[in-house]
């Protein structure tokens, strides 16, 4: 145990660990709102917890339950969520050159893959040395996983106990989506994709089955074909 905590005497390592755990705590609050929103959309507490444990990629979980809550089919709910999960593939590629030094043997890398998400990628790639990258990846990954699942459970139990409509909690989904969307509006292409995606969804909502307009909105990424 002493050997395990020994690196923490190094101020640089300590800074990385503190950053990772702070982020984990903040994400735990996000998970609270997922828990509440997911049970109010019709999932059981167990199903909500299983989503956080096994899917473990926030935007996809929110998207799937938002479509299910609106009365969409499972295929539509799955489709939108899977598209949102596709970016983890890009993160995996970005991390792959340091995968061996971060995770070592193949079984460990297979385990590590579950933790390849926005936050772990951002924090790991921000580090200079392979050693710090490894520390950042694992503290962020395991810390965030713990907070994410704990937050989900508490939120789901709370959401089960109250009437979501009465407290205006049906707005929890769009509010969380707005917070997640903002960083993507920094670039011009991001703003164009968002505007087009929102418009495509609103135009098609009244004549396509529930949830399909979300898939149609994915066509908006084609604005990326044009320029840099």
């Amino acid at each position, binding site marked *: 145990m002493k050997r395990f905590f020994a690196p923490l005497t190094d101020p640089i390592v300590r800074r990385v660990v503190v950053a990772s755990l702070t982020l984990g705590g*903040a994400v735990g*609050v996000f998970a609270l*709102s997922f828990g509440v929103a997911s049970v109010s959309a019709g999932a059981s507490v167990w*199903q909500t917890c*299983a*989503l956080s444990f*096994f*899917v473990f*990629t926030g*935007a*996809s979980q929110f998207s799937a339950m*938002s479509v299910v809550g*609106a*009365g969409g*089919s*499972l295929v539509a*709910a*799955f489709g939108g969520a*899977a*598209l*949102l*999960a596709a*970016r*983890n*593939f*890009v993160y*995996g*590629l970005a*991390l*792959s050159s340091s995968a061996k030094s971060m995770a070592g043997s*193949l079984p460990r*890398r297979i385990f590590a*893959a*579950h933790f*390849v998400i926005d936050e772990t990628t951002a924090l790991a790639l921000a580090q200079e040395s392979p050693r710090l990258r490894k520390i950042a990846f694992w503290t962020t990954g395991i810390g965030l996983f713990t907070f994410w699942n704990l937050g989900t459970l508490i939120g789901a139990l709370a959401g089960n106990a109250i009437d979501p*409509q009465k*407290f*205006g909690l*049906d*707005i*929890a989904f*769009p509010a969380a989506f*707005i*917070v997640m*969307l903002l960083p*993507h509006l920094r670039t011009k*292409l991001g703003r164009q*994709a*968002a*505007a087009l*995606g*929102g*418009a495509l*969804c609103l135009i098609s909502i*009244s004549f396509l089955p529930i949830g399909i307009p*979300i898939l149609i909105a*994915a066509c*908006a*990424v084609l604005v*990326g074909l044009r320029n840099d």
Partner: protein
Amino acid sequence: MPYWLVYEMISPEPQHLWLMIVALAATAYLFKMFGLIVLGSQQLPKVFDRCLGLIPAALLAALVAKDTFSIGQTLLIDARVAGFTVAVIAAWRRAPLIVVVVLAAGATALVRAL
């Protein structure tokens, strides 16, 4: 495909949500694993990279639009617009998520109660 499976996918019962959860968990994991382990350090074409990076912008905006301005297949404006407006302002001012959600829910509940 067996007919009951098709039926379940089109009109899900709550307990059959498990089908989607399992499929989504497998898909999400495969995406992560493919990048990290299988494809390794291969370079993707720039255009492909850029389009994949735009998925969250397009889909999150669509989800916001759907959750604020529709119920089922009906477009409508109701109390949620108040919550939406408050959420945009709060998020823009960089309020933490929990504050954004609480303010938005409060505004929605208030307008609904009026």
